[in-house]
């Protein structure tokens, strides 16, 4: 990220966490730009799901019907993937989805900060899901949860090998789960910033701005898809915990 005369590339500066008030150090409790954009996501959820559903109308208002679409979409996903006994985890999965969705979408506002681009955030989400799902698996199934790694359909001599691979893949899940989200968001925002830097040169500015527009459209798609992917993978992991027998 060298600073040069003419072209100035700082594509990663948008991810810097800084205090909202003053220039002091970033302590764990300091209100920062990360705080601001996460709380804006919370406000969006409140606006949609508390204010939007205020009327409790059988014939919904516009906002309420949007909230109902979200509800129906995630509820159906949870029910389809995990079955009926997974429905009681629906509020948690809805929380994850809405947080990621609104963080991703709000981050697309120019000059915004993207909380989901930070591995600290997505790792908490990913490992949170991992730990929760593992605990649920053992609580619901006891030791037979380990049967998930022992393929009864495979030939006997292959089973230990498969078990090792299954265990490794199980522990890689939270890593891929969290890095997928952070990586997608980071990459998209960084690319937009790089093209934005090129817009400083009059000759290539039109191309650059076209490229920004195109990447932005792609990023809108990515924002939605990554929220969806994170959520559906959570459902799949939860299904494994509830019904470890394949």
């Amino acid at each position: 990220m060298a600073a040069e005369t003419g072209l100035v590339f700082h594509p990663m500066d948008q991810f810097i966490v800084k205090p909202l008030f003053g220039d002091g150090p970033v302590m764990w409790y300091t209100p920062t730009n990360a705080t601001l954009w996460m709380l804006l996501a919370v406000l969006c959820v409140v606006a949609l799901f508390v204010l939007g559903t205020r009327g409790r109308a059988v014939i919904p208002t516009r906002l309420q019907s949007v909230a109902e679409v979200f509800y129906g979409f995630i509820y159906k996903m949870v029910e389809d993937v995990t079955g009926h006994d997974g429905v009681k985890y629906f509020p948690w999965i809805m929380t994850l989805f809405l947080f990621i969705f609104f963080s991703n979408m709000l981050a697309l506002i120019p000059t915004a900060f993207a909380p989901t681009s930070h591995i600290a955030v997505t790792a908490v989400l990913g490992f949170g899901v991992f730990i929760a799902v593992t605990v649920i698996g053992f609580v619901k199934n006891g030791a037979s949860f380990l049967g998930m790694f022992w393929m009864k359909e495979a030939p006997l001599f292959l089973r230990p090998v498969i078990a090792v691979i299954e265990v490794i893949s199980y522990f890689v899940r939270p890593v891929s789960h969290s890095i997928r989200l952070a990586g997608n968001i980071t990459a998209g925002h960084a690319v937009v910033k790089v093209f934005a830097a090129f817009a400083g040169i009059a000759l290539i500015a039109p191309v650059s701005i076209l490229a920004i527009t195109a990447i932005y459209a792609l990023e809108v798609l990515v924002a939605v898809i990554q929220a969806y992917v994170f959520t559906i993978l959570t459902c799949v992991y939860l299904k494994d915990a509830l019904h470890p027998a394949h």
Partner: protein
Amino acid sequence: MATETLADGMVQGGAAVGSCLGLDGSAIGMPQLCTDWMPNQIFWLLVALIAIYFFLSRIGLPRIGAVLAERQGTITNDLAAAEEMKLQAVAAERAYVEALERARADANKIVAEAKAEIQKDLDVALAKADAEISAKAAVSEARIADIRAGAVDAVTQVAKDTAKELVAALGGSPDARAVTAAVSARLKG
């Protein structure tokens, strides 16, 4: 960003402010990997998640669930009501068709009765007219017969008188009875 104006000409990573920012205020490497900021993000993330969970599980989701259930109930009720109304409509249609058929049958009966009555009157009138016609025809025939008889008598008389005159004119003394007998015999032949 206040430090952005310093950007030009700074050497990257010269004297770092903390371990994540250069003196020029830009990031060293990926800000995502800066451990200084992680406790802050994790703390606020947990706050945000708990807030969202609270609002959803206490207010938003039960509300929407209730609305959806209520809507489902309303739709089910409305469908049942519609089904009932449909049955009523079918019954009403059947009653209507029946009434129509009955009315048509009644009308046919009335038409037939009227026709029969008219026929009866007509028959009576026809019979009367026939009787009158035949009576008149009989009277006329009688008169024609009279006229014809009268004509024959007159012809006979004329023939007898003419025969008597002819006999007298030819110089015979006509025996009236003989002439009459002769003429009568001739008229018969």
